[in-house]
């Protein structure tokens, strides 16, 4: 349910949002319709307006589109890279494993945020670069996880049997390792997805992520953070949106695990 609301928002943002993404509709930080002070406009700003007087609900809806899509692309990309290389390292062992692992070690030795900042300021802040950088950084973590998972699997006898059969590396990875690592990987996916969220918003805050005036939930929290000291709820809405989506994603992951592989322990 939580997800489907978000999905609708992603797909039909321009249709359902009462205002445009960047339209200024009222005063700065005006409260929502539950308050008597709400600006007298039609349609009403249900959740109030932000620091520049833009309709918060509209921005939330557009923000969902930007943030979720971006996070999905990044997470999917980093999983593809990380899992592929992680399995490859575990299956082939030897120098392949050594080389890949050392490269990952080097990447992980840098503080992630600083690494991202350096690369982004050198290469510009286009969305493609943003995706590539975050995905690469994230892939190192996933490489670690999937390599560890795969190493447990390659010592199992069914894997040995497949190897003895003379199966190719691709079959070993996709048919023998992947299905048995899927449970923990899916759980990791749910978690990573949310981390990517936070990472994007951290970058946005530093001016290297999603650029204003484009809406995204992370920067909306940051931009409106000051409002909390005036006793207003505005920054809580994007934060709430992030939290709900996180819970939603994890619920879906759990459900998927139970449904598809019959796993009871994630």
């Amino acid at each position, binding site marked *: 349910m939580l997800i489907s609301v978000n999905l609708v928002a992603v797909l039909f943002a321009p249709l359902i949002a009462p205002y445009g993404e960047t339209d200024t509709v009222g005063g700065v930080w005006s409260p929502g319709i539950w308050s008597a002070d709400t600006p007298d406009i039609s349609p009403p700003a249900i959740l109030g307006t932000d620091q520049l007087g833009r309709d918060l609900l509209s921005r939330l809806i557009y923000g969902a589109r930007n943030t979720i899509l971006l996070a999905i692309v990044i997470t999917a990309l980093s999983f593809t890279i990380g899992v592929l290389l992680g399995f490859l390292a575990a299956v082939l062992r030897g120098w392949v494993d050594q080389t890949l692992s050392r490269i990952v070690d080097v990447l992980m030795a840098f503080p992630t945020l600083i690494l991202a900042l350096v690369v982004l300021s050198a290469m510009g802040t286009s969305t493609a670069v943003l995706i590539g950088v975050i995905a690469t950084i994230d892939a190192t973590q996933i490489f670690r996880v999937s390599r560890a998972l795969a190493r447990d699997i390659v010592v199992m*006898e*069914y894997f040995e*049997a497949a190897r003895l*059969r003379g199966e190719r590396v691709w079959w070993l990875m996709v*048919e023998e390792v992947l299905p048995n690592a899927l449970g923990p990987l899916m759980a990791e996916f749910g978690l990573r997805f949310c981390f990517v969220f936070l990472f994007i918003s951290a970058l946005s805050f530093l001016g290297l992520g999603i650029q204003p005036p484009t809406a995204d939930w992370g920067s909306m929290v940051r931009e409106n953070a000051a409002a909390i000291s005036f006793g207003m709820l505005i920054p809580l809405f994007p934060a709430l949106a992030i939290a709900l989506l996180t819970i939603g994603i994890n619920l879906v992951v759990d459900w998927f695990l139970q449904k598809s592989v019959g796993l009871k322990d994630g």
Partner: protein
Amino acid sequence: MADALISVKDLVLEAQDGGGWRQIVHGVSFDLAAGEVLGLIGESGAGKSSIGIAAMGRTRPGVRIASGSVRLEGKELIGAPEEDLRQISGQTVAYVAQSAAAAFNPAHKIIDQFAETAVQEGRMSAQAARALGLEIFRKLDLPDPERIAQSYPHQVSGGQLQRCMVAMAMACNPRAIIFDEPTTALDVTTQIEVLVAIRNAIAEFGTAAIYITHDLAVVAQIADRIMVLRNGREVESGAIGQILDTPAHPYTRDLLAVRKTPYGGSGKTEGAALATICNVSAAYGKAAPTIKDISLSIPEGRTVALVGESGSGKSTLGRVLAGLLPPVSGQIKLDGKQLAPDAMRRDKDTLRRIQMVYQSPDTALNPRHRVRKIVGRPVRFYFGTTGSALGDRVAELLGEVGLDETYLDRRSAEMSGGEKQRLCLARALAANPDLIICDEVTSALDQLIARDIVDLLKRIQQKSGVSYLFITHDIDTVRSIADDIVVLKSGEIVEQGSRETILNPPYADYTKLLLSSVPEMRHGWLDQAIAERQVSASRAHAAHDVHRSSK
């Protein structure tokens, strides 16, 4: 019975099954008098362990006591407060688990773990508990008790550790001990030592015991009374002599007949050698070699059994032959042609000709694959069969191992241990191999099922003329399947030859030890075996390096 120590009445146990509860024990009753030893025997899934634990008023996670009563010295345990149960366990009733290695904390010295319960309960000082520990260790015939007491669990052998467990159970001088398969994980030669220790301990302390096992021959040495369980029901119970001599129920008779399987291998006359291993030594990493200078040959269509205790290097030899562990030196030949030491460098057809079946079907089958794929993949991989021909071949293979088409869409978790092992065999057969390496294929199975698997292996051999390298620690299974036998100890061949030569006198000392350690289904076997052992041990000591030459 008023004077019963433990009295179990109409015990019904239920296990969690998906969302609901399923009965696993359907009303079992027994009484255990003080000082008496009751043997609970049955196959896996018979509910014997659950009954053992319930006798302490407890259950495993996922199991509950649905109805019935368990009384300890007249006091009802079911529904008793947790505090009382804790008082009881360890003090009045102690429990010895199957795997001592898992039951000990690897981070503490054995003597400290021994003393822990007694000291915590405030029964004695740490000093006194340690002294008591040493005394009990001595009584259980542990060699060098002081050293063992100061050791960490990984520093002593499995058999010694299991005896330490028994000692620990004795620590608080309990009225009864529950032994849950205490020797199942051990080698036969070690099993004997633990059995003697348990029996002496029971006699010495006058403790009552419930002895749970699947091996009737083992329990025959210890128990006064036996209860045979099957599928959570009592099949029959009675005094030990009566069960052994005049079993009433056909199932008991089946269990008794297990050790009387007909002898014989393929019976095929020795022909050309299919595979030969010449002067092979192998080691894991840079460690000392696990097997040293082994030479043997496997003739076409015959079965060579590789026998030895755990750590003798028998599985290692199988792995070398399969190409999983490239040897340090020596050669492996198939049909006279030298094989690459590493399986990754062998061609597809060579890989096809040598197949492997493992001890534990649980880890040998990909839990995410369905039967159709498990068996179908090698067929498709090696022969390129697709479509309906593939389906036919898979069905045919399943038929050969005694499974049918209803299994096609199952996963391994939905099958029993015996069925899984049959499936492993079908997977190996799918490659049309010339040689199957069977690594302890029967040791994880119940005896009756193991016998069926051995029969199946023999049937397949008659039909297809495949050769087996049959790796096992169980010299009894060897009798019924092997043509040739190779006895291995500490990585070296003790002797090799045809079944008749090896299993008939005169024996090599070590072979004799192995043979005499196999429990026999009669009372008093244990005493006799121990006596013989002491004689042969002293003789072996005198003639330490005189080996009978092989063949």
